[in-house]
């Protein structure tokens, strides 16, 4: 029972982190990035590459992979996504779906379509506390999430850049008039979001395996983001943890197959009953 709770919490943290990436980008640019899961996949693969191909230590590889993917996210924004700001949302959604497909293809060409495991300092180690076996991998996920969230919170609240970013996302034009380089802010948001996705991918890697379809986990993270109300950062995390717990418990107590769709069923029910999510508020068009 406690075991299940912990595992659910860990899986939920991963969903939450990916959802966090969705929300960051959505808040800043009103784009919904369907390629978020694939960025996560790229992060996991990049880390794997640094560790296994180039023999870097885990921590070095971790940092290198996150930086690489973050830079890639920023480049993506300035090269592609900036062009579609203000276009119908549908076009943007299609664009990111297309990008996701390209990333998957890219991964399968560079790394092949095999399944890999990422060796980490936490692999196959466990601690027993009060009769519950807790594997270090799960602890690393939860700890990583907590640290990352604290860091992000501090960044957005206490640094000038973070505050400027919030301003840019709340009112583009006003921020622009105040001398905030809005475009650079957007690139930075994309970098952070991609970096968060990469971290999620690397943390997840020891638990799940790495393959090019890792990105489809993004769909469940989607459920988390919606559950938390798309524009809310704590909501994304809460949504992620909720989905993770629901998934593991339904896997344990309900018939086979339910586990795989539990996240989506919850998503549909939430959307039908409370379309604005648990924490969100829905904006009504003014006429």
């Amino acid at each position, binding site marked *: 029972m406690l075991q299940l709770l912990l595992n659910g919490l860990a899986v939920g943290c991963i969903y939450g982190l990916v959802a966090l990436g969705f929300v960051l980008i959505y808040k800043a640019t009103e784009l919904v990035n369907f390629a978020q899961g694939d960025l996560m996949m790229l992060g996991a693969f990049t880390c794997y590459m640094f560790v296994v191909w180039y023999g870097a230590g885990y921590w070095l590889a971790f940092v290198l992979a996150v930086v690489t993917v973050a830079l890639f996210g920023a480049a993506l924004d300035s090269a*592609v996504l900036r062009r579609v700001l203000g276009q119908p949302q549908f076009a943007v959604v299609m664009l990111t779906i297309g990008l996701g497909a390209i990333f*998957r293809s890219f991964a399968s060409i560079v790394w092949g*379509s095999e399944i890999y495991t990422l060796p980490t300092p936490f692999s196959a180690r466990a601690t027993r506390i009060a009769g519950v076996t807790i594997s270090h991998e799960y602890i690393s996920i939860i700890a990583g999430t907590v640290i990352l969230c604290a860091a992000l919170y501090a960044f957005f609240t206490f640094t000038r850049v973070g505050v400027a970013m919030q301003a840019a996302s709340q009112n583009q034009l006003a921020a622009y008039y105040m001398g905030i380089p809005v475009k650079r802010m957007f690139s930075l948001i994309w970098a952070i979001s991609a970096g968060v996705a990469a971290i999620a991918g690397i943390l997840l890697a020891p638990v799940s395996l790495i393959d090019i379809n890792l990105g489809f986990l993004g769909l469940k993270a989607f459920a988390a983001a919606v559950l938390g109300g798309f524009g809310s950062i704590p909501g994304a995390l809460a949504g992620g943890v909720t989905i993770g717990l629901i998934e593991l418990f339904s896997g344990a107590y309900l018939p086979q*197959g339910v586990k795989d769709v539990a996240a989506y069923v919850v998503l549909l029910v939430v*959307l039908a009953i409370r379309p604005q999510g648990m924490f969100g508020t829905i904006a009504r068009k003014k006429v």
Partner: protein
Amino acid sequence: MRFLLKTSYEQDLRLFRDAVQRNWYIALGLALLVLPALVPTYLVDISLVFIYGLCGVSLMVLAGYTGLVSLGHAAFLGIGAYAHVYFVQDLGLPWVISVALAAAVTAGAGVLVGLPALRMTGVYLSIATLAFALIIQEVLTRWERVTHGLKGRPVDKPVIFGVSLAHDAAFYFLCLAALIGGLWLTANLLRAPTGRAWVAIRDSEIAAQSMGVNRARYKTLAFAYSAALMGVAGALFAHKVGFLAPDIFSVLLSIQFLLMVVVGGLGSLHGALFGAAFVALLPVLISEARDRVPAWAGQVVALAGKDAGAAAFLGVDRFVKQPGLEPGLFGLILVLFILFEPLGVYGRWRKVQLYFSTFPLYKRATFRRQKTYMRSERLR
């Protein structure tokens, strides 16, 4: 440039703008009638174009005209396909009745998705349809009594009124007839109040409502109609693939359907057909290219040296035989279209048409979207 003299209101209700356009369509129809004799080897691929055409029309109604973007249309195709196969092969119903029932079942599923969708807008709706599609895929996997699960189930050739349509050409005409029928019905709806109500909902829900459009009714109707078309397409699709397995109806297929409407151009039936041809024939092109491009590359590089040529051949060959290449190519095309030709192939076609019909007076600004709003013009 041709000018039309309009003399009655009926003229604006015709499906074809004028005699010239009608004759073009008749010519196209004749070409399609003789096509089986000309390219017998590609008939199956062209049948798929027709089936996808039906899917494209279906999604165009929903996404292009009503503005409800579904990311899970493959699920409706799957429901239609499995329902049809179940009705025909397990219950032994006649083919035509079975297709009608499959369409009805899918329409019911459409209403089921449409009802909660009434309260959602934009991306939320897309996400909901995506979730729905994933759930349906799981159901198709688990409901083994009907779907035979992951083992898959073989599909017989269609037999209509005792006549077997096992021959490729017969199936070709069946699909063509279904597509033309679907197009006709859809075009009818689009020139009637229903179609206008859909467009109104797409462009401004609030104004549509104030003008008397019952949003719930027309959104649900759009879902049901779109799903029903998908059901018919699914029945044909089942015969086309000959073997049903749940993973055929994946998110990737849904995305290909969306690709059709984007590549073709949102908001036009022509676009749906252009897009369908594109998506259905691209894999054919790719597989042709797989066989030929390495040799070409090898020959070109061989000019620099024999060994380099052989190496280039092997390298390119290894590259193009990557299994992951195709979805990536689809993705790339999608990205390029949205960035550089948001109006799609049909939009480009219209531009070319206008260029020639107004030559040499074509103005590039004709299709540029106006950005300034506050510009007054005296009305006289």
